[in-house]
């Protein structure tokens, strides 16, 4: 039916759906720019989940209690699940997962720069939960109202799990700051390293973010970078106080007039360096992803060959 409508009508219908805060679904007509923007957004998000497994997986085998080990392992597993889910959402837009993986490996698509920092102590696991997941949630909660249906629905599930992770991270830090001096030092040290990169997770300041206006018009982005960043600082500063850690920003203070926390200037030069591939772990993260993908090529080929032979029906049934 829709295929026969003239382009103009299709576009009008699309804009109508967006205006009324309804959802665009995979089989609906959408402008090329919308589709491309969304594929990029969803793919970057999927890549971020997958690359984001690495800094945390780094501590699974060394987690100092079995309970924390289980929590961390489950969290990293959730991230793999989110990645799968998001690649599927991208596929509803006509993207191909293999192709997206190649783009990631060849640095033709980005992932969140936060994962280009190393995890140096077990406290980093807690701080990532608290700050990085916290920032991710600020970013993502509004995306539960993304105009693109599959992404919006994915975000509902993902946000639920992320806020669970965030609470677990914070709880680990609470336990650690109530522990030994060495533990408290670890938490402070990790906070010092992750604070500024977390603020950078919201992207460049609004006056340097040229695509924001179109994305907001399409309702695939619902708030500006600076709005979300402020929301994150306002949420986090009191949590830091409750933990007894100091955020490494001498300019951070409550501004009663604004009703917000003021905070210091972000080092945008560092942000640009890391985004453009020159962070402490960019090369390492991509090399690890590439190695896994290349080492697994023969396995994927075998699975495909087997499926072709057996019409995708497994030959072995469990004896019961």
């Amino acid at each position, binding site marked *: 039916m829709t295929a026969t409508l003239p382009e103009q009508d299709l576009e009008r219908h699309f804009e109508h759906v967006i205006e009324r805060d309804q959802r665009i679904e995979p089989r609906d007509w959408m402008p090329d720019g919308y589709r491309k923007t969304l594929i990029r957004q969803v793919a970057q998000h999927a890549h971020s989940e997958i690359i984001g497994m690495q800094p945390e997986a780094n501590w699974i085998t060394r987690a100092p209690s*079995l309970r924390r080990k289980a929590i961390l392992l489950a969290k990293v*597993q959730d991230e793999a699940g989110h990645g799968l889910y998001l690649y599927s959402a991208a596929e509803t837009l006509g993207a191909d997962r293999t192709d997206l993986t190649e783009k990631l490996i060849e640095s033709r698509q980005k992932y969140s720069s936060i994962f280009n920092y190393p995890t140096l102590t077990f406290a980093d696991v807690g701080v990532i939960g608290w700050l990085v997941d916290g920032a991710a949630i600020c970013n993502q909660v509004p995306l539960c109202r993304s105009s693109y249906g599959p992404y919006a629905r994915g975000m509902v599930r993902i946000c639920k799990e992320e806020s669970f992770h965030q609470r677990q991270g914070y709880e680990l830090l609470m336990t650690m700051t109530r522990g030994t001096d060495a*533990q408290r030092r670890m938490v402070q040290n990790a906070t010092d390293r992750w604070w500024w990169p977390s603020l950078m997770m919201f992207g460049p300041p609004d006056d340097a973010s040229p695509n924001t206006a179109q994305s907001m018009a399409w309702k695939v982005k619902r708030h500006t970078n600076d709005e979300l960043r402020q929301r994150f600082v306002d949420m986090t500063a009191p949590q830091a106080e409750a933990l007894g850690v100091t955020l490494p920003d001498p300019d951070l203070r409550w501004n009663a007039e604004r009703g917000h926390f003021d905070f210091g200037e972000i080092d945008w030069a560092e942000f640009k360096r890391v985004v453009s591939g020159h962070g402490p772990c960019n090369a390492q993260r991509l090399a690890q992803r590439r190695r896994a993908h290349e080492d697994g090529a023969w396995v994927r080929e075998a699975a495909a060959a087997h499926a072709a*032979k057996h019409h995708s029906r497994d030959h072995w049934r*469990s004896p019961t």
Partner: protein
Amino acid sequence: GDDLAAYCLMLGDDALVMSHRLQQWCTSLPELEEEVAVANIALDLLGQARLLLTRGGTADGSGRGEDRLAFFREEHEYRNVRLAELVNGDFAELVARLVVFSTWRLALLSRLSESRDPVLSAVAAKGVKEVTYHRDYAARWTVRLGDGTDHSRGRMQAGLAVVWPYVDELFAAHEVELRLSAAGVAPDPSALRDEFDNVLAQVLSAATLSKPEAGQLPGVGGRAGRDGVHTEAMGYLLAEMQSVARAHPEATW
């Protein structure tokens, strides 16, 4: 009490150490589906380890909790079979180890779910459901790789050859196991061999693979994993696993 405790450590250490080797695969698997599945198996085994170590620490009256047992025992106090500690190889070795380990463990837990010890029986019953999935997962991959490409078939056969020398140890009865078997608390490991052989024969046949001819890895002076005598791989594994906990012996996490 002491036999029961020792037995809980045996099965708990099998799960903990095998889980560690699976954890090390994290972010290196060939597909995201495998990331999810292998992490899931590692989590299940970790859960089994926690229940069993906790039970062990209660049974011997030492009051040692799961973390005390996991992080502050020396290598010679670890009771796991040596198959669990084997250094990771390629994906075919992972699949081979997993199909052997979970076929054996499922046979074991099935019988253990009828143990006279109510805690062991409950832990085993829960484990049966989990390990049934592990075995199916590993068996499906054994078939895919064995009956996939020529290349994958060769690698799968080679992977089986790597793990096969560790098989007999799974069915060698330790005196603790014999006493618990006599008391109706635990199965005699040697009684699991038939089921293991049958299941493996079915899987290998579906996978168009042959049973490896490899000789069996002996112990040292007749002593092996169940006696706390491990391979040279074990020390490195524990050094990694215990490093943070031991750096902060006074800490709680």
